[in-house]
């Protein structure tokens, strides 16, 4: 079993108003089987034993699905491996890259204020969903689930968008700190399904407007978001969203004019 010593430069910031700075730590006896977060757990236990403030970071499921973990590692949101969340990075991958020194930072975006160290506030993403990222269906009023067949390719495509875990890596990776991929994933998921048609035009307009109001930047097609997305969501969804947005602005006669073709 391979064991290494890793030098860590970690962003420390006591609260939103503190300037923040990098502090350097040495993680000893790091084994190839440890996950990246377990390396930090181990370091934190030692910091606690020494009476020093442990590094605050978000994490929960540690299976790559809850979207809670969020670290920029050597400049990459969720590290350099594709389709991987921070919690799914194992030290074996870090060893393979030959890294002995790692820089860890929080998501950086005006719309994600830093709470402490590596923890940021992502409630702005919930607010974008509140602006229309749903189908208005009252509990108990649904018709039989098999009454509306959905062609498999459409359902599969909707699924590709629906896999978004809302982690915010797309925002962290974007030079404009845009939430376009996040917003487009929800817009695309619902716009593809027959259930989502009634609110399709009002949804895209409201969600994009809210994204802008919350201070996220616009999309200028860098494509960094797609690369950073742990679920591999395609920027094609941003193009589809923009097309719907344009239609909604030109038509602007309410939902009755919703285009009926799939995106």
């Amino acid at each position, binding site marked *: 079993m391979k064991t290494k010593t890793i030098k860590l430069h970690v962003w420390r910031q006591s609260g939103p108003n503190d300037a923040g700075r990098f502090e350097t730590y040495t993680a000893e006896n790091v084994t190839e*089987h440890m996950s990246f977060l377990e390396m930090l757990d181990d370091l*934190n236990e030692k910091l606690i*034993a020494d009476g020093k403030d*442990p590094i605050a970071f978000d994490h*929960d499921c540690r299976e790559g699905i*809850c979207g809670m973990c969020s670290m920029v590692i050597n400049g990459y949101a969720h590290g350099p491996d594709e389709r991987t969340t921070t919690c799914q990075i*194992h030290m074996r991958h870090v060893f393979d890259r030959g890294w002995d020194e790692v820089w860890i930072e929080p998501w950086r975006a005006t719309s994600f204020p830093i709470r402490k160290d590596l923890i940021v506030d992502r409630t702005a993403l919930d607010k974008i969903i509140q602006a229309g990222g749903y189908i208005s269906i*009252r509990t108990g009023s649904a018709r039989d689930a098999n009454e509306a067949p959905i062609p498999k390719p459409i359902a599969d495509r909707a699924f590709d968008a629906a896999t978004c875990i809302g982690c915010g890596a797309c925002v962290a990776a974007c030079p404009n700190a845009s939430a376009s991929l996040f917003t487009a994933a929800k817009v695309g998921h619902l716009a593809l399904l027959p259930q989502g048609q009634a609110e399709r035009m009002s949804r895209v307009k409201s969600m994009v407007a809210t994204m802008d109001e919350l201070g996220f930047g616009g999309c200028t097609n860098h494509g960094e978001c797609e690369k950073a997305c742990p679920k591999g969501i395609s920027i094609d969804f941003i193009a589809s969203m923009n097309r719907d947005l344009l239609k909604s602005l030109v038509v602007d006669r309410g939902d009755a004019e919703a285009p009926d073709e799939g995106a």
Partner: protein
Amino acid sequence: MELKSHEPTGPIEQRWTEHKAHSKLVAPHNRRKHTVIVVGSGLAGGAAAATMGELGYKVKCFCYQDSPRRAHSIAAQGGINAAKNYQNDGDSVFRLFYDTVKGGDFRARESNVYRLAELSTAIIDQAVAQGVPFAREYGGLLANRSFGGAQVSRTFYARGQTGQQLLLGAYSALERQIAAGSVKMYPRTEMLDLIVYEGRARGIVTRDMVTGKIEAHVADVVVLATGGYGNVFYLSTNAKGCNTTATWRAHRKGALFANPCYTQIHPTCIPRSGETQSKLTLMSESLRNDGRVWVPRKPEDCDKDPKSIPEKDRYYFLEERYPAFGNLVPRDVASRNAMYVCENDHLGVGPKIPGEPRRGVYLDFADAISRLGKHTVVERYGNLFEMYERITGDDPVETPMKIYPATHYTMGGLWVDYNLESTIPGLFVGGEANFSDHGANRLGASALMQGLADGYFVLPFSVGNYLGELRTPPALEEDDAVCKDAVREVKARLTKLIEAPAAKHGPDHFHRLLGNIIWKYCGMSRSRDGLKDALKQIPELREQFYREVKVVPNKDETLNQTLERASRVADFFELGELMCLDALTREESCGGHFRTEHQVDGEAKRDDEKFQHAAAWEWSGDASKPVRHEEQLTFEYVKPTMRSYK
């Protein structure tokens, strides 16, 4: 105390309908006068909060994560059962009910389980209408699969992410109500106590996990949907933040805790790799449909490359011991047998960890690949293979997977009646947090079903019935004495942790030690002597914890993740002790509870004469001396038989 289930009588298929027809309602203009607190935003909590908001109640919903979308329901992979009979293979509400009662080893309440099966179909309709992208066939209709050895295909699924998609459906409904102003969301807020006033649940004490502020929230009803207590084992497939604090604090305020010893160990998890491991990862049980489980017959082969071991030296222990079900035996049976071959026969192939037997067995896809072709097998399990390779560095197509059981789900929980009301009036409990529907063992694809049945359909209705009867509860404000006292108590509890006299180790150190005790003595196999030993060790370790736990930073009014963990571990200590006591008292084997003294040919031996009841424990003020109550279970529709998979 007499435990009244309040279940309706009459023909079982009429009970829920009749019950609804004769319950109290709250008129729309009166609903907005009632405040309802929902703790937890997973399938049960999120669905309940959204539905009650929609009905017009003033809802306050709390979760410890930074967004309600991250509740641990999100991690469920496999699927959700529903008696739709879309496959025309003979499924029905009765059959789903029957399978669930039998699967629970005859330790669940029939009326509740029937209602669950009945509501299952409406859940699928609801989810599809919300845009949940379930798997579909080429004709565009919904696809189903058979799951966990069921004889019918009644499981709906969404790739390996069914929990995620269902939760995002409930979350979207919740966000819609938040936007409408009917639900106020409190993320990063943890419930640390329950407020009981004049015998009724009337509020909670919370800690804001960003500022550390501790405050009271008052309501007319409190709903707990805070999940299970699997993290008492330290290592489990639960998210790191899952904890028992909300349910345990309610228990200390008078809610009975039922069947805490019923815990489920899932057979297909990735084995532990070392001492610093922080959690275990589940691989979907669907892998057992095509994978064959084996270990080497000779201990000296355990180190060898598995591919070099000839067929005759491989021990396919499930296929040999259970010819009828083979690799598809239920979870508890598969798990226990994996443990036997590793711990008793020393044939384990898991990683070497100092001072432990090697824990791990092979799950081999070589036969499936030669029968179906690599393409088909990868298409079926590709995402799981990828996940496995990422964690272990091995490709399951090239070399057999290694798996070992891990704690996954807890069937026990707060005791509730048919209305999901606990023994504290006005305190309702849904989802994994209650004890109600799975008996001693939960079947695959049933957790999502129960969470959503409770959340969308049972809790909103039961809360209405309660408020319809109560009408106006006595006035209570956040600055009344009872609330201020509760806040003060919570602060004192946290101060005690921060000011431990001989502070030495962080809370994880003690959590790991506690987990080892529970896993060893109250895990897959339990014995009288072992449990007695555990009951001696836990209080000793708890004392040491209160003496030596170190919390840094040493203040509560700030973001303090060490304090959050210390407070949760403190409650796990008391719950862990109750688990062992419950397991010791239940002198039988049933479902996930296996007592070595009670077996026939290695199979669980129930004692229906003495233990056909739910054991519900009452807090007495002393963690080591709770009072045991019983709710007798009757079986009118499914006659108890011995489960046999041979």
